[in-house]
């Protein structure tokens, strides 16, 4: 075809406009702490807003204390959460106890909010079975294989639908890198095919270890990926806890009403390393790149709103931090007092009915363990 002649389809135009519906992140409080959506903010009482702030202070303190424990060699694998407080606390608080949470490894704070203890979180990090046994049975363990929690969410959501459970949904987290997994598509697509109740979170924190978001996909937004599966989706300012909560609540309501799943992309940032074990972000990103995100900090902007309202003070925050630190130190003591694990128990949990070989090995280990 000669240059300049009209093509039957304008791919360039499609490409240039395909992200349009998705690139308007929902925001209530902007990066300067200015309220840009006063009507939404007005739906929240001062007490509720203070509670949001407390939860973010709690998560930030948990992160800092966890890093201390890590440096002291008292924990195993830990994925730092600093920077993601609004995304994590804003979302999890929109769900109810009966909702089923499928977390990934950076989601210990949501698990604790959903019905387990800080000590259990530490036990998971240390590598102890009790770190997978929670008071609220409506949660999976933190998934390590990125994407597996997404396909399992489809099953939980379908199970909820088949049980005809009222007012119950599944909710799940992954990161920006997670959206590249085949399981990400399979999970969202299966849930959509069955119109089952689930809310899929993508916490886009900019980095999959060292690989930046833009190298995961040429798609302008991650939210738009959902359209291919017939699923509504939205971007939200993940440093704005009110916006995250409001969007999450709407998504839960929509899914619980039988309308099928929703995908939410929270725009957030991982301040620290990928994990407490050996990752050095200075190898792949500069302070210049990260500074705007630190300036957009979720605690700074909420602190400003609450201080302007006269319902928050630095003194109050400092006291809270000390209180939380004490709680986390107690939780660590509790975790450290957990009973030693036995290989004979591992063998007993491998099958409901032990195989003959496993039975023999149980007896061998029990004999060793009783010495």
């Amino acid at each position, binding site marked *: 075809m000669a240059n300049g002649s009209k093509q039957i389809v304008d791919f360039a135009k499609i490409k240039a406009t395909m992200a349009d519906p998705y690139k308007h992140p929902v925001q209530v409080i902007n990066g300067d702490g200015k309220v840009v959506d006063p009507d939404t903010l007005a739906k929240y009482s001062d007490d509720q807003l203070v509670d949001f702030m407390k939860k973010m202070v709690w998560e930030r303190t948990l992160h800092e204390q966890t890093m201390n424990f890590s440096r002291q060699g008292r924990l195993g694998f830990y994925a730092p959460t600093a920077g993601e407080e609004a995304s994590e606390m804003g979302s999890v608080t929109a769900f109810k106890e009966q909702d089923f949470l499928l977390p990934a490894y950076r989601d210990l704070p949501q698990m604790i909010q959903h019905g387990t203890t800080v000590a259990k979180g530490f036990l998971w990090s240390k590598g102890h079975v009790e770190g997978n046994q929670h008071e609220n049975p409506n949660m999976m363990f933190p998934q390590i294989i990125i994407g597996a929690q997404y396909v399992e969410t489809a099953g939980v959501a379908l199970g909820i639908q088949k049980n005809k459970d009222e007012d119950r949904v599944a909710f799940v987290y992954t990161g920006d890198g997670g959206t590249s997994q085949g399981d990400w598509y399979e999970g969202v697509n299966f849930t959509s*095919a069955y119109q089952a109740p689930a809310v899929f979170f993508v916490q886009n924190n900019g980095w999959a270890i060292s690989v930046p978001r833009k190298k995961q996909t040429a798609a302008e937004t991650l939210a738009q990926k959902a359209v291919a599966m017939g699923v509504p989706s939205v971007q939200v300012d993940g440093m704005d806890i009110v916006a995250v909560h409001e969007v999450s609540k709407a998504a839960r309501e929509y899914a619980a009403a039988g309308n099928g799943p929703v995908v939410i992309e929270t725009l957030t940032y991982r301040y620290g390393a990928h994990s407490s074990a050996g990752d050095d972000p200075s190898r792949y990103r500069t302070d210049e790149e990260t500074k705007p995100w630190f300036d957009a900090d979720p605690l700074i902007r909420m602190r400003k709103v609450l201080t302007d309202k006269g319902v928050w003070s630095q003194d109050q925050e400092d006291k809270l931090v000390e209180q939380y630190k004490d709680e986390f130190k107690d939780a660590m003591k509790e975790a450290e007092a957990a009973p030693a694990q036995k290989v004979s128990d591992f063998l007993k949990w491998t099958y409901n009915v032990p195989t003959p070989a496993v039975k023999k090995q149980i007896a061998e280990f029990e004999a060793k363990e009783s010495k």
Partner: protein
Amino acid sequence: MAKMTYIKAITSGLDQVLSDDPKTLIFGEDVGKNGGVFRTTVDLQDKYGEDRVFDTPLAESGILGLAIGLSLTGWRPIPEIQFMGFTFEAMDGIVGQLARDHYRFGGQKNFPVTIRTPFGGGTHTAEMHADNLENYFVSTPGLRVVTPSNPYDAKGLVISAIESDDPVLFMENLKLYRSMKDEVPDDKYTVPLDSAKVVREGTDITLVAYSAEVNEALTAADALAKDNISAEVIDLRSLSPIDTDTIYASIDKTHKVVVIQEAQRMAGVGAVVASDIAEDKIMSLDAPIGRVAAPDSVYPFAQAENDWIPNSDDIEAKAREIFNY
């Protein structure tokens, strides 16, 4: 009692559990209206409704994710992976997740999933449809692997697999689906999940096989009998765990053994059986352990399948060699 094919016996077992337990669910590619590409689930959707027997989108990892999530919400899932070659797409779901989840929760949650999947050579299918892939799965703690060699066991084993609270991989042999008929009770019965069976008694040599190779071993035993060599044939039925007691009792009688598999020889079920025998029963043996297996090439192009799959002649020759050692 009725004469039933292997595939009808499986269907009858599925019908039984769907009727017994309202929490059982059958799902997979084409299992609904179409009744499966082999018709294993034929008429079950009509009988039990689309809520219990349903099609999935075409994605095996998603199917395993469904199974795990449905277990978490109180269901007893029976997913079908349309061909065993497609289990590679669900490897994380089966090996990385399902098999480990009961352990991860310290025994507090059950994942009573039975994965049904057809396998086995000799029907000239497209590639990735016929491989014996059991070797990948029998090395997975937490997962049971069973495979029947005849219609009677097929029904009893599929019921036991589904009733088990452990995850079970239930392998259905393609070539056997319609090639043999047995008396199969109409009523419910079970075949234990972890026991081998002596399918032919003998005194001179033990032939240990499973799935379609059991029939090849029985044919070989007929040929050996003509020369007054009395072969005992054992059908493993369970590939994980292996019922060594039944094998050892036979070796104590015959003192000679040949271990047979349709899969490639490398690192397979036969190697595990042979090493168990070597460790526990070497002093009872009068000859080396014989092995019959497919060669270590990639699964053959369909036209040459019959040159590659071990048959009764191969078994007979190896049995004579070990018998005459």
